[in-house]
């Protein structure tokens, strides 16, 4: 950073929402809830609890899709696509993985969703200087 850049403050020409609002952590948190709900379901013998786990899992899978769509449609711009030609495919896979996890109680599908959301997170991090997606994952695994 040059001395001039240290002296001159930025003026933000914002995206749709104020800069910094978009964050794949939202999708990651919901995807983690999907995974955890399935895990709790598989560990339980309580039918009422299992029914609740299914309901929560489906709700969280839907929220995962929502947060992915917001990133896809509102945050990512044509120049991001130029830099990463696989971007549409990454989102396509992630939203399809959310649909698959929504209708399944198989942990493999929930793990596939986490992996797909992480691909989005890595793609997002590549567009934003200073953003560390690893921290998001580490915080959720802590």
């Amino acid at each position, binding site marked *: 950073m040059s001395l001039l850049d240290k002296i001159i403050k930025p*003026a933000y*020409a*914002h995206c749709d929402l104020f*800069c910094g609002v978009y964050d794949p952590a939202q999708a990651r948190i919901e995807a983690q809830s999907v995974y955890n709900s399935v895990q709790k379901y598989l560990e339980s013998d309580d039918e009422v609890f299992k029914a609740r786990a299914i309901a929560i899992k489906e709700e969280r899978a839907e929220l995962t899709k929502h947060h992915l769509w917001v990133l896809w449609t509102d945050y990512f711009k044509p120049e991001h696509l130029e830099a990463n030609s696989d971007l549409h495919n990454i989102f396509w896979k992630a939203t399809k993985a959310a649909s698959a996890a929504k209708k399944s109680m198989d942990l493999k599908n929930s793990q596939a969703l986490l992996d797909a959301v992480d691909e989005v997170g890595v793609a997002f991090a590549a567009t934003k200087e200073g953003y560390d997606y690893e921290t998001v994952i580490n915080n959720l695994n802590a």
Partner: protein
Amino acid sequence: MRKLYRFKAPIVLRRIKGHSMQPKYMPGDLVVASSFIQPKVGKVVIADVGTYDVIKRIGSISEGVVELHGDNSSDSKPSTTTVNDIRAVVL
């Protein structure tokens, strides 16, 4: 909480970050603004919206409330602030 009085530097230099003022103002552009100029509809201004400054064009001013727009409509939604939050008008 908004400040009732804000010291306004006569000349303000800012580096643009973001795309909402394209095509006239590109990311990385340096802009010079002055608080001596009266904010009017259609003028591009530097506004303090809290912890940072934004660069936007004034869409309307009514009873001290200013509506701010980006020039790049695909990358911006109108927002509002107060006249007091306008730091300076871009030259």
